[in-house]
Each structure stands twice: as C-alpha cells, then as structure tokens.
C-alpha cells in the first residue's frame, strides 16, 4: 500500500525506534532489505537507522560544549603582547560595536597571565588550569570568523550554517546523514543548563525544515530530565506501579471481551515499551555507578563544578551508548561579558573548565576520543577595547565576530596544534581564517561525509549544512 497517510510531525521522533528494537523489528527490516542505505540526494523515507557514510569516517560521535555568549579569546586562548604594551592607548582601527552607549576606543590588555603548556607549548590563560593539562590532545583554532554581529545571528551561523532562522542544526544534519547507533535513546541530545536556556532557546536544537525525527531532544540537568518521562513526584514508585497494574487489569478484561484485536494488544505492549524507554534513559542519565575517581575527575565532588561536570559525564555516557550528537549549553549569556569581566570571566571559566578537560581525559582513557569529536566554543569572541571604561570592576568587552577562538579534540583533529592568527590586538582573524562554513565542512569530512553531497531537497532546491556557500575542509587541522 502506498503510504499516503498523513504523518504527524513528531511521532516518529527517534523515540519510535525504541519500540522497534524490542519488537525485533530491526532484524525483520534487515531481512526485507529495508534497512537504510546511505542517503541520496532525494530520499523518500526518513529514519534514524544507522547509515554508512560515503567515506571511511574518523569520527562516529560528537560532543559540543557550546559556550553561549562569546568567551573572550584575548583573555583565554590568544595572548597579545602588543595589546599588553599599548594598554590604555586609543585604538585607531575600525570597530563594530554592539553596545555603542558604553563603548570606547581604549585598548585593554588582558588582566590575566598566559603560560605555555604541554609538549606543544600551547599558551593558555591562568583562568583555564585544567584545559592547560589537555592542550596536547587539542586543536586550538584562533582564526574563527563569522562576520555577523549579534548573538542570534552568530548562533545561527555556528549551529546551522546560515544566519537566518529556520535552518536545521548541526546535530540534525549528522543524524539525518548517519542515523543513530542506538534505538533505546534519542539520536541527538541537548543538555541544558539549569541557569537558563541559551539565546534562541529551543532553536539551538531545532531540525529546521528537516523531518522532525532529527530534532534534538532536550534533557535537563535536574529532574524532570525529559518531557513526560517521569511520573509526578508523589506518584513515583509504588503509586505508579499500582496504577499501571490496575490499568493492566482493566485492559486485560477489555481484551478478553475483544479477543484477537491486535491493536489493543499493541497498546498494552506500548506501556511495557514505555517502561523500557524510561529505563534506558534513566540508566544513561544515572551517574551513581561511576567510580569516585571518575566523579572527582569531572569535579562532581565540588559544588562549583559539579553541575557542568555531571553533564559532561552524562555526555560521555550517552556517546558510549550510541548517541550520535550531544550538545551542552552554558546558561543564558554566561560568556557575554560586556561588563564586569574581571569577576565574570573567572567565574564562567571555573564553572566549565574542570568538566570540559575531564571529558577529553576520560574519553581518551576509554579509547573513545579517536572516534568522538569534542568541541568547545561559542558564537563569537570579544573586542580588545574596553567597554564601560572608567572603573576596573565594571569594565568589560563588547562583541567580536571577526576573530575568535575555540578548541576541538578527538575524532581526527590533529592533537597539540594551534591554527590561525588574529591581528596584533586579537581583533580580526588575519591568517588561516576558519569560517563557520569551513568548520562545518571539516566536521562532516571527519564523519565521512561530503558537505556538498549531504543534501536535503526543499521546495525544489537542494539544501546543505554549508548553505551552498562553499566551505573548505581545513586539512591543516586534521591528522
């Protein structure tokens, strides 16, 4: 029968996979030759079954630590002696301000010291002591550039490859092209910060115009973790078990009066499947079985680092269980240090530094780093001039999308490398510039995909993650 029934937008959400594996349907599909093939230009059916990429992949999964707000590259990753020298002087270059009312053209040196670390000798700010320990496993990119000015556009550029709303996010593209290795968990998970959603909220994990099965599933760091997963607090445990038991009795009586109705049987089975889903999700999100050493590594023993550390650990657990793409977010505008950077930046660093580094160390120790890309970065960087000039305590830095830094690790990225340069003030990227398109093309390449061939036809036009704007696989970054 032709499938001319109308499909709803979300009921195929990777969740449906949960039911199938337990029905043994996967085997059935394989037998029938229905198992997905590599995607072609115009797929007619969409699913989250695992698909082989076109080329041999280096990476199989990705964890992105998204530092929303724009971490200051000048104070963290990109030391500028010239800026130090000319601290307090007027800057004569062109600057695009976001907050003009509090702008100035006065150069501000980084208040923090840099030191070289590891065999690679990568310079790292004193604000990131744990990152300093993993520099030999990391590729530091100093010449990032999106060229758009506000948070929204910057996020769209980094997350979706375009600057306008409505496009699918990176995680959606990866799950669209490659499916998922697990049928018990969502293919694409967004781990949100209890302090608030990033700017653009749920658009950060939208599937845009891709089918909704490629939407990220939001998982909160505190209960309730996932929508409808948990009973209300007072019903947990015995109360829900008794309710399900009673419901089971009602349904059994009903079925007895309607023997042979397979729909009714399937409905009864779906409650058992829901239980399986609950168990798989709970199990993946439950870190109590992790060793003390692991928890300590992630800073879970320290209230200041526990929340982010826990999410990093969960990210590892999800990837271990076959989830394709996990993204962690920092709270709304955590890194947007227009003002009060002297206190704000160290606090933001403290919150994430230990967990981020632990993730790389732990993945490496478990042999997962080679196949897992780790990304750390935001949608922009910050200006070398001071915002709110006057008092040291209120001083901050305005947006800068012409030159910023981020780091990558694992999955085929070249370890212990620094790539790209900004000008002598750390303002604009001037050498080995990496655009958001280059970044995305490179990522897809590591997953065995060609960014010009992973397409989705929409309104008659083939669409791509790189927005049909080109994009270079930056081979210098790769092993």
């Amino acid at each position: 029968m032709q499938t001319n029934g109308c499909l709803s937008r979300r009921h195929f959400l990777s969740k449906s996979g949960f039911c199938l594996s337990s029905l043994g349907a996967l085997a059935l599909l394989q037998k029938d030759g229905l198992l997905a093939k590599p995607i072609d230009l115009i797929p007619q059916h969409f699913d989250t079954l695992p698909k082989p990429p076109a080329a041999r992949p280096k990476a199989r999964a990705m964890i992105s630590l998204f530092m929303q707000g724009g971490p200051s590259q000048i104070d963290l990753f990109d030391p500028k002696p010239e800026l130090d020298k000319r601290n307090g002087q007027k800057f004569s270059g062109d600057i695009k301000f976001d907050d003009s009312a509090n702008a100035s053209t006065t150069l501000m040196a980084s208040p923090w010291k840099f030191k070289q670390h590891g065999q690679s000798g990568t310079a790292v700010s004193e604000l990131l002591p744990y990152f300093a320990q993993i520099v030999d496993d990391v590729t530091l990119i100093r010449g990032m550039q999106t060229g758009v000015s506000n948070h929204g556009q910057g996020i769209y550029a980094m997350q979706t490859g375009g600057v306008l709303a409505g496009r699918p996010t990176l995680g959606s593209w990866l799950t669209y092209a490659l499916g998922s290795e697990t049928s018990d968990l969502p293919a694409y998970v967004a781990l949100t910060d209890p302090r608030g959603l990033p700017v653009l909220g749920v658009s950060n994990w939208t599937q845009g115009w891709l089918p909704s099965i490629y939407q990220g599933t939001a998982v909160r760091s505190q209960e309730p973790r996932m929508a409808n997963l948990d009973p209300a607090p007072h019903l947990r445990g015995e109360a829900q078990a008794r309710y399900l038991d009673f419901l089971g009795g009602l349904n059994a009586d009903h079925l007895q009066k309607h023997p042979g109705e397979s729909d009714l049987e399937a409905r009864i089975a779906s409650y058992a499947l829901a239980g399986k889903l609950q168990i798989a999700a709970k199990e993946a999100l439950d870190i109590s079985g992790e060793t003390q050493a692991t928890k300590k590594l992630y800073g879970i023993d320290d209230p200041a680092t526990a929340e982010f550390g826990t999410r990093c650990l969960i990210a590892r657990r999800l990837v271990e269980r076959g989830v394709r793409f996990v993204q962690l977010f920092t709270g709304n505008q955590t890194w947007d240090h227009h003002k009060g950077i002297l206190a704000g930046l160290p606090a933001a660093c403290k919150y994430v530094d230990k967990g981020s580094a632990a993730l790389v160390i732990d993945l490496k120790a478990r042999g997962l780093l080679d196949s897992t890309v780790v990304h750390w970065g935001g949608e922009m960087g910050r200006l070398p001039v001071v915002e709110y000039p006057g008092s040291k305590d209120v001083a901050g830095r305005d947006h800068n999308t012409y030159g910023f830094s981020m780091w990558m690790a694992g999955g085929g990225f070249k370890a212990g490398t620094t790539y790209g340069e900004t000008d002598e003030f750390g303002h604009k990227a001037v050498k080995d510039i990496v655009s958001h398109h280059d970044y995305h093309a490179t990522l897809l390449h590591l997953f065995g995909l060609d960014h010009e061939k992973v397409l989705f036809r929409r309104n008659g036009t083939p669409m791509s993650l790189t927005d049909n704007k080109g994009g270079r696989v930056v081979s210098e970054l790769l092993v």
Partner: protein
Amino acid sequence: MASLHLHPGQTAREHLPSTSRFGRFAFFLTCLLSVSGGFCVSEPSPAAKAPEGPGSAAPLTFERNIRPLLKHHCVHCHGEGEKLKAGLDVRLRRFLVTPHGDGGDLAIVPGKPEESEMLRLVREGEMPPKGKKLTPEEVQLLERWIAQGAPTARPEPETVPKVYITEEDREFWAFQPLKRPTPPSPKNAPPGASPIDRFVLATLEQKNLTLNPEAPKATLLRRVTLDLTGLPPAPEEVAAFEADTAPDAYARLVERLLASPHYGERWGRHWLDIAGYSDSDGYSETDTPRPWAYHYRDYIIRAMNADKPLDRFIQEQLAGDELVKGPLKNMAPDTIETLAATGFLRMVPDGTAAAPAAEQVTARNAVVAEELKVVSTALLGMSVGCAQCHDHKHDPIPQRDYYQLRAIFEPGIDPANWRLPAARMLSLMTDEERAKNAVVETEAKVIDDRRKKREDELIELVLSWELAKRPEELREPLNTAYRTEVKKRTPEQLSLLKEHPTINQLNPGSLYLYDRTYNTKHEAELKKIADEATEIRTRKTVEKFLPVFNETAAAVKTPPPTAIFHRGDPKNPKETVEAADLTILASFQIAPFGQNKEGAPSTGRRGDFARHLTSGKHPLLTRVLVNRVWHHHFGRGIVASVADFGHQGERPSHPELLDWLATELVAKKWSLKELHRGILNSAVYKQSSTRTPEKDAVDPDNLLLARAPIRRMDAETLRDAMLQVSGKLNPKMFGSPVPVMLDTDGQVIVGVDTTDTAGRPTGKVVPLNGEEFRRSVYVQMRRTRPLAMLETFDLPKMEPNCELRTASTVAPQSLTLMNSEFALSQASLVAERVLRESGAQPEAQIRRAWQLALGSDPSPEEIQKAAQFLKQQTTTLQAALVSPAPILTAPAAASGATTAAPAVAKPTVAATTVPPKPAAGAKAPPSPAQAALATLCQALLNSNAFLYID
C-alpha cells in the same frame, strides 16, 4: 468494469493483496521508522499487477500489457524528452520495430525474444541505467509478448498524439459513468433491509458470512455519539437511552446528534483535513501566523451544521467570489460567508511573503502546485502532482492535463502577477467604523507629537551630559560635529566622533542604553506618554480581515496564459493550454470553462469547473465524497485509498454500493445528513464488533464488514473527550484560535507566547480564562507548532493537506498518558468532579468514575478491585504526600519547581493544564484519598475501553 467480484472459496485477501495481514504489518513498521517524503513514489508498474501471471498463455497486447511497463520505466528518456536517448522512442509499438539511432538497431524482433536487444538490456539490468530495474515478472511479460509476435490491440496512430489515451486507459473503473445499481436481494437479508445492508449482505453471502447482531445499546450510543460529535456521551444520555425502549429510540438518537452543534465541529474537522486548514503560512520556519484563517474554519463548521448541500458547498469553496455581488465593502453577513468559503483555495503553505526575491519563482510555483494537490486529492481523488513534470506513469494523466487544471486557477493565482497573502484580504471594517477610528487617531497623534518633542529634548540633555564629560577643548568641536548632517561632516569631524562612540551613536534608538547610566525616569517618562497614545488607540474598532480567493480586474480582462513547464521547471515554459478537466473525463465536460460573461467578476473558470464537478454526472467527485464519508464511519473507505482512485490506489471492496451511494447523494439533493442517516441506521453500522474465528478465517481484515471495526480515538477526540469527562470542556464556538506556545523543552502547549525577541522566556503568564479548555478544532493549527498532546496521537501535518490519517501505537503515547501534565491535571479534575457528584462512599465514587469515563456501570468484581485499589493507593499516597502543598493541584509544578532559575521555569504550564486557581486559600490541598481517586480516574482515561471506539 474492473470491479471486484469474489468467488466462493476465495478470501477477500487474495483479491486485495496489498492489505494482507503481513502487508499491513510491514507497512506499520515502515511507518514507525520513517516519514514519507512528498515525492512521486515509484511502485511496481501496473503491468506487473495485471491479471496475467508469468507462464500464462493469455494473449498479450502492447496497449494493455506492455505500454504501462514502458511508461513506468522507459518513456522518460525514450519518448518524453525533447531529445530521444539513442534515438529510440518507445511510445508506440511501431517504433520498436523501426531502426533507430546511428546503428539502425531494432529494439525488438517480433517472435524472436533472443534477438531482441531491448529484452537483453532490461534482463541484464543495463536498462534502465538509473532507478528501479524491471522485476523478473515484468521481464517475462515482455519476453512472452515478443514471443507472441509483439501484437497490438488495434492499428496504432501514425504519430504519437499530443494526448495519447487508449481504450485500455478508459476501461479503468473510476472513469466509468455513474450508474445506479439495483440493490441486490440476498437470501440472508431480513425483510425490509436497507439498500446498504443488501449490498453488504450480498457480498457476505458469497462467502457464507453474515452481519453480527446489533451491538449492545451502551456500545452503540458511545459509537455513534463519538462518530457524529467527537465527544463521548454524558452519563445522563446513557441512562436516557438505556431507558428509551421505543423502537425508534436509536433513530431519534441519530437525529439528536445530527442536530447538535458539536456535529459540525466533528465533521467540519474531517473536511478541514482534506482542505489542509492551517493558521499559519508554513513553507519556511518563519511560519507566519494567519490570524484570519479561522473565517474558513467557521464557515465549514456552520455549513456542516446547516447541512449545506454538498454541491453548493463545493461551488462556494471553488468560486464563492463569483456568487456574490460587489462592491466588496460594508458587506452583508451572507456575502462574507460565501466569500469565506474561498478560503479553501487559501489554505496551502504560502511562503511568498517571507521568501527572498531569488526564491520567488520557486515559492510562488509551490503555492500553485500545492493548491492543485489539495483540489485534486480532495475533489478528484487523484494525485496529479506527478504530471507536473511528465506524463503520469500509472494513470492516464498526461502532463498537459496538469496544466489544464492549473489554468482553471491561474487567473486568481498568477505567479507572474503575484499577490502576497496580505493582498488577498478583504477588510471587514465598515465605512462608519473607519470614520470613527480616524477621529480617535487624530487624538492619539497629538500625544505622539508630544512624545517626539520630549525625545528630542532628552537627546539634547544626554548630549550635554556626554559633552560635559569631555575635556573643555573638545566640547565645541564635538557638539558641532554631532549636529552636522552625516553626509556633510568633514574627515576631521568623522575621526573625532569615531574616538567618542558614545556621542557618535547617540540617537532615539540608542537613548535607552544611556538612560541606565543617567536617570531611568526619562525612559519611564517617554513610555508613559507612549502608553497614553496606546490607551487612546484602544478605543478604535479593531479591523478584521477576510482571506479570499478571487481574480483581479486585470486578470479577468486578460487572463494570464498557462504554459506547460518543460520537466516541471517554471523557468522553462513551453506551449500554452486552455482550462479544462482531465482529458480522460472530457466527455463529461459540457462546455469549455470560462466563457467570460461581460462584466463578470472573474473569468468564470472556477465556477464552471465547480458546476461541472457537481453536475451529478462527474464520475469521480461523488464517488470520492461518499467514499470519504464511508471511511469516517467505518475507519476504511469502500476505496481504501480515499484520495487515490487511480491505478496505484486500491480497488473498491463494494463497487456497486459505492455507485449506489454516489447516486443516492445526488438523488437526496446532496444532503450529507441524509447520507449519514442512511448509513447510521443500517444494520451494517449498528452491528457489534465481536470477532469470530470463522469470520477471521475468511476475512481477517474485515474488508467485507461482517463486524463493526474497533478504532482508536483520533488526537482531537482524545483531548476533547478528556475535557468532556472532567467537565471542563468549554463549548464556545468559532472565532480566533486558542493560542499555542513553546515551553522550555520545545513542547508545544496551549498558551500565549511571552518570550522576548531572543526567544527567552519572560516569565509572564497571560491568563486564558477557559480558552484552554475549548475543543481542539479551535486550537491554533500552526504548521510548525502542533500541540504536543495532539501530535503525539497522530495529528496530521498539513503539507499541504491530509487525505488519510494514520493511527500509530508508540511508547511516547503511553508516556504522555501516564505522565504528561495534561493527562495528570485532567485526571485530578475528573476526581474532583466524581467527589462533587458522588460523595464520600468509595463505591459511589467508583460507579460515578466508570459512568463518566466509560459511559457504563462497573461490574461487582470491578467495584471490588477498584475499591481495593483505592484503599491501597490511599495508604501509599499518605506517605508520598508528606509535603502536600502544591503537588497535586499543580502537577505542573513537577517540571517547574525543581528548576532553580526563573529563566527555565515553566511559567506557561499553568495555562495548559492546571485548573484555574481558586481564590487564595479557598481550597485545601487534596487528601491522599482524593489523590488516589485521581489515579483511578487516570487509569480509566488511559484504558483501552476509553481510547478505543467499539
């Protein structure tokens, strides 16, 4: 007529292979795993479905057996294109035996399969080079035909006609003229059996089957009430019906339900599916809302309730603009209503307002194409979309036909002279209201001017403060530079200002930034003045708009030419065509469409098309309409593929009944309610759903209707039924949709979106005052924001419309029923109602809960089990409710309270699920016993007895 006749001893399954048990199971799995794209689906060619199996010696002909196969696999390159690949054209048999290409090869040698190059190429898989290869059966068919000497049915035309439709094409059942069959008189029909019963019984008799006895009264009541109103019967209705022992009790029940205003909401919703009703533009993620689309929804509901004859109903929707008199201002209510009907042609996604210039051709063409899809699936039961690019591979729909249909609508929707959605609105404001508003506006303008003046003063003030912070010597140059017009500033001035960005960028737009460092009272002051103006403007009558489909005077005068697009590419138009129905139906068309009458408001093409469709003679329209009604009553159409009456669709299970119903509709003056009466009063409808092994052995999928089907409630019915049981259902009809919004998980819930421009929650909650409890048909249908509760239960995606809903069974549905805020809050509300209506006795509570949720009384065993459940659950909850405060009254608190920061709290949850809060302190938190009762009610609402219609 290629109808379906079952022979004794043959099961229905053998005749309808694609609906076999396994077939359906595999389909179910595929659906679970995948989402179908909106592309032409490649299926085995019809030839492979032909009755002649391989090995049979039946004589084959080119027209009947081979042409369909070649159309499917080969014609795209070897016939349709401007250039023939390898010089070979396969559209006529004569070309196959004529030397082609440089080598002068023959494609086939009649009688000699082994020398036929074409056979070798397809057998070895060299051809077709891309796409699906021929199946072994198809290859065998070709081989046998060649071996038989490659005969044709009759002499072929000399050249390929522009529109080549063969006699074989015309034989297809759906294109046959309607004839009124005489109802048969099977032996198993009781005296006085209705025609419907006689048709169904006759088919059953051939299989030695008969109908089930009538369903129990309570079952029948629930079935027909949900069927006609989408709501379960109230306990009082159950009692009254049980007590009514008059022979016509059921018939009167049907009358009462047909007269209920809820009937229009339920059956209107069915039509809204096929029309693709949507409260937003779709196309892109911008998905601009359509605040006025509801006029069309309301028109449909009113038309259903009024039993507007379906011929008029369709004429109004296709050409309501031709049926009213201008001028289109200060319009009378019936004029507005008739124009609202044309919203049918304004429902499809239309992204042209948001699409950039470079995308306009694509975006506009998409609107026209989607509109044709809606029209053809809704009214013709044919998917013509494939013919946009090439001749239809399976049905006799040449590419030209697609553009003939397109020409009917193009004067109203001309891509070359595009009208954006906003330009297709008529104002409903009267001249009198407009004049009054102008007076108000003048008053408000005075305040606006005052604000502007004050703003200028404040800029001066801030400037003076900024200058004061500069060294003395810079003040004057900066002041002058700032006041100099930007274009006239000297390089020195520009450079000076650049060094002082806080002065350079001072303007009305940035004033608020400065305010925080100076004095917030200024910002507040400006806002106060602005509020004053806003306040005055609230006295204006709000202008309402009506989306209409009509034609501009210019288009009427000079209708735009409609051209065939080469390969469907709108940038490559070729020959022009005239407006007409499908060529294969040409004999039913009396006159060309759109013989423009002087001074008419349109070309008349749509009106003529509508009258042609509703002449009562059109073989597709009436069949499609009655089949869809049958589908909604029985869960399956007589033609199961309700929107595809073509070769790829299903064949009718009861062809004569279908035709009888179609002619009956016309005979009963196109009254839908008459059609309902006939069906609902039939023994076929009223029979029980009980399965028996005997029936299952012969007809496991119940194609022959030897029992009533069991069906899951659809999404809207489920939500509405829960609201009805809890007593919260707000019966308000019509008007602006109930708004939806995203909660912080991206779940769509009922509520007013109060996020800021960056998508951040503001924490503001707009009370909905009972709107949240309105029926689902009134909830905003924004394409990108389907209400989560509905979507989980298969609410269709309108892209552009929905021909046939699916009913899935997946684990997230169970989680929704178990744990969602909606399910929990409704269960609590049912418990409150039970307590109110039955008092403190557990047995009375249990009885009432059963009556409310299931429309029946519990058995003694059920009472006993439920009482034990309540007792044990109360004890358990006593412990669980140690901190009783908000947990039960607001299950939503579970999602909000534990998240620390207000930014991620779920401020809006309250709007969807939590009952309106009583006055502070008015109500004590529920006791453990009440909480236990709530879980009992929830179990009833989640049970199969509730979810399924028996």
